[in-house]
């Protein structure tokens, strides 16, 4: 059994972002979302370009939240590997199902 009673309960890195940094990150996330919605109403862009832009911006937002708000950038690499393993498996499911049922064609 793990004895957490004797272990230090808190475990933090001193280089976690400051509240001001968290607010800057929130502004960036909001701007990306606003840009996504604004571009949605532009008629001159093809559907393929829309999909590429939306997925690209979604990935950027995902990475920013995971790195800074979920502290993966500052925490043990083991957490990052665990999470990436889950993401790879999830993407695999998506691609396999998509190929099997021809979602992408």
């Amino acid at each position: 059994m793990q004895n957490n009673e004797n272990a230090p309960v808190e475990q933090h890195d001193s280089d976690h972002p400051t509240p001001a940094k968290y607010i800057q990150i929130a502004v960036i996330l909001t701007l990306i979302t606003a840009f996504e919605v604004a571009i949605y109403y532009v008629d001159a862009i093809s559907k393929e370009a829309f999909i590429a832009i939306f997925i690209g911006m979604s990935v950027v937002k995902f990475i920013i939240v995971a790195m800074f708000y979920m502290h993966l950038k500052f925490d043990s690499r083991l957490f990052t590997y665990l999470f990436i393993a889950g993401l790879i498996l999830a993407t695999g499911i998506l691609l396999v199902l998509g190929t099997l049922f021809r979602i992408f064609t």
Partner: protein
Amino acid sequence: MATHSTTAPHQGHLATTTGLDHRKLLMWTFLASECLFFGSLIATFLLFKDASVSGPTPQEVLNIPVTSTSTFVLLTSSLSMVLALSAMQRGDIVSYRVWILATAVLGATFLGFQVFEFKEFIDEGLKPSTNVFGASFFTLTGFHGAHVTLGVIWLMSLFIFSFKGKDGKPASKSLDVELAGLYWHFVDIVWVVIFTVVYLISSLE
């Protein structure tokens, strides 16, 4: 199973085999499994969204302005969550209470938007039993909403427990808040993907 290190714990490391808190490790393992859960639901949605033999279709019912607003609300709740954790780590309990309550309120607001959206869809004739688009849409967004609901209950519990400690100190420790924060941010990034795939991409003509 013994998990004690044979050496004394260094500063910032725990006396476990990994040197990491087991609860945090468990939370990340859970979140990795949740990636599979939501990945499967999103894949199922993509499979069925255009397979309905009758309407309404995604292009007919999805309301981008409303969902953009609820997305903004959820993104803002992620900010208030990290500010709550930051306040707890600084020992600023009053700020912690304000931010954790704000996060719960924003989460509840997001749920309000979801209820509004579901009601609108039902009024327009889209129910889970209407067609396969409806079934996959309500399953995916419903499960996400259930996760948000659980998160709001968790946040409210932390808020209430912040008044229950001894000597003016809250009963919760900052690791408790960090674990709730990890869950909350995960729910947020899942919504980032759902907003893009289900709403923006699926509603394109």
